[in-house]
């Protein structure tokens, strides 16, 4: 008791065991956090144990027991479910699509957002810039189901707006939903379109936070527009840029499910190899009668890769510039 150094403030060095240092305050805070704690345990941590499914040949056991009983009494499959997934025809296609689309999305969205924010910040008519920002923000609030209706209105072969224009100019109708070659561009366009308002306004927020005296000083010293952008504006948006980049890298094995699934019209067979990603594959497997273990293997592979890339991206950033890492 006499050599106790700290009384509070997380003093883990104190002589008393933790349960004696536990105060009434701690009990109250614990109770206050209990609902959220249970939420996290149920909806975030319980699924992590889903990893077991990937290593089992899940079978219904006789006796009408619950899911967990059936799972625990199913036989182990080792890495069988994984090797089935890795050697299936779909695997390389899914890996290629998921990663390439994401890389294209990241590069194009980031350039559009940063470029747009730089342009918006330098516009003379501030009120006009506000109106543009608001209008460009609209797609962000539309669900992919609604966007798929927009796309349908434009692309449906017989009545769609675009084929209407093509035929009125004397061209041939294009069967959009059956021509894979257009879809990478359509998907990249839509992804950019939906996110650009948000991206621009986000970067704009950090640009408008820059102290104007920095620009004044730069102009005094004879800096050109380009030099100002390079030495003042871009460094100011770097933290947000890097944060977004790390978050995006963490999602490189994931895909915006609605974009790939809804907008293409639930992935018709003709587009299957062009627009399928891990998420659409797993979703279709859930809806079908595919063995749950194989689906779990695909799902788990995706989760592990996501975790790996986000930690890797953070590590790279911490090596280059320790201040901007997010973890």
């Amino acid at each position, binding site marked *: 008791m006499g050599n106790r150094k700290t009384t509070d403030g*997380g003093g883990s060095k104190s002589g008393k065991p933790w349960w004696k240092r536990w105060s009434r305050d701690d009990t109250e805070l614990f109770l206050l956090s209990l609902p959220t704690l249970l939420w996290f345990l149920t909806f975030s941590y319980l699924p*992590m144990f889903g990893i077991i499914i990937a290593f089992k040949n899940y079978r219904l056991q006789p006796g009408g027991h619950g899911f967990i009983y059936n799972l625990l009494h199913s036989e182990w499959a080792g890495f069988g479910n994984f090797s089935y997934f890795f050697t299936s025809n779909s695997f390389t296609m899914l890996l290629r699509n998921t990663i390439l689309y994401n890389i294209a999305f990241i590069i194009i969205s980031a350039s559009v957002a940063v470029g747009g924010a730089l342009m918006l910040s330098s516009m003379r008519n501030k009120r006009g810039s506000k109106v543009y920002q608001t*209008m460009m923000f*609209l797609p962000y609030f539309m669900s992919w189901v609604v966007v798929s209706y927009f796309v349908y209105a434009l692309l449906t072969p017989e009545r769609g707006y675009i084929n209407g224009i093509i035929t009125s100019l004397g061209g041939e109708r294009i069967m959009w939903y059956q021509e894979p070659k257009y879809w990478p561009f359509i998907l990249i366009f839509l992804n950019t379109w939906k996110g650009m308002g948000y991206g621009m306004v986000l970067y704009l927020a950090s640009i408008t936070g820059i102290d104007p005296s920095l620009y004044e000083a730069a102009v005094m010293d004879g800096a050109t527009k380009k030099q100002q952008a390079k030495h003042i504006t871009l460094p100011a948006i770097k933290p947000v840029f890097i944060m977004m980049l790390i978050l995006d890298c963490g999602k490189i094995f994931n895909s915006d499910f609605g974009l790939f699934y809804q907008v293409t019209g639930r992935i018709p067979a003709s587009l299957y190899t062009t627009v399928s990603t891990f998420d659409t594959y*797993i979703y279709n497997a859930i809806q079908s009668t595919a063995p749950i273990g194989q689906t779990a293997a695909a*799902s788990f592979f995706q989760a592990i890769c996501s975790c790996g890339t986000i930690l890797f991206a953070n590590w790279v950033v911490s090596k280059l510039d320790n201040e901007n890492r997010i973890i």
Partner: protein
Amino acid sequence: MAKEESGQSLNQIKKSTNIVFNIVFLILAVMCVIPLLFVFSISITDEEALRVSGYQLIPAQLSGSAYKFLWNERGMILRAAFMSILVTILGTIIAIALDTSMGYVVSRRNFRLKKLYTWLIFIPMVFNGGMLASYVVVNNILGLSNTIWALILPLACSSFSVTICRTFFRTTVPDSIIESAKIDGAGQFRIWSQIVMPISKPVIATIGMFAAFGYWNDWFQASLYIQDKNLQTLQSLLNNIQKNIEYIANNPYGGLSLQQYKASMPTESVRMAIAIVIIVPIACTYPFFQKYFISGLTIGSVKE
């Protein structure tokens, strides 16, 4: 044009460049808004005119029949709208309660379990069990399929929004207020609900908006867990109609004759009218709430 603050004017671009920028953004802005007009004009075009001349921005023949149809079928639409509103309101309230209570708890520096909780909240940001495992938990273990909770609970909380709340409480709620409340004998629950929450409206608005738009726009949870027609939200109604139509298009010889199927389906103008019913509440409100979506990310990115 009058010069603005000196810093701004020094940094100003040439008038000609400004015009070019205006044109670029005008095009982009129109691109973002015009699909709404496309959908709207289909919804007010006569079905026969659609068949003859396809979709046109200016309807060849006006018709209110799609909206009349919706009005006649208002039982279905209103039920779906009621579900959407119920899920959005209930979900947002639950989300705010879960996010702010946890955010408050981890913002308390003296809390014994703070370290443990910080990890507990951080880990789901980088690792999750995947779509299948979540499905199994909700469907097989909790058995929430075909209940309203399957639409609400999985989206009710996130590490991201808890972190936003924690950062906000830590940076803007002074410790002295909490200490003096404690001296006055207030428990932590009372401090959270009667002292911290009333002075934290900005963060409540931010996470509330994220939650509300998330719930209103959600169709994914419904497509996984809801088969019961009575529990359809507007988004899932729209989704299901489109699904059935694509099913017919892909299986022209499946059972019933194509004509019979087609006759039972809502016409294109009706489908577009349902889309308008979903869009209008968002399109009318988002300009007022837009700023909260940005402040969410900027608050959340502040490190300790």
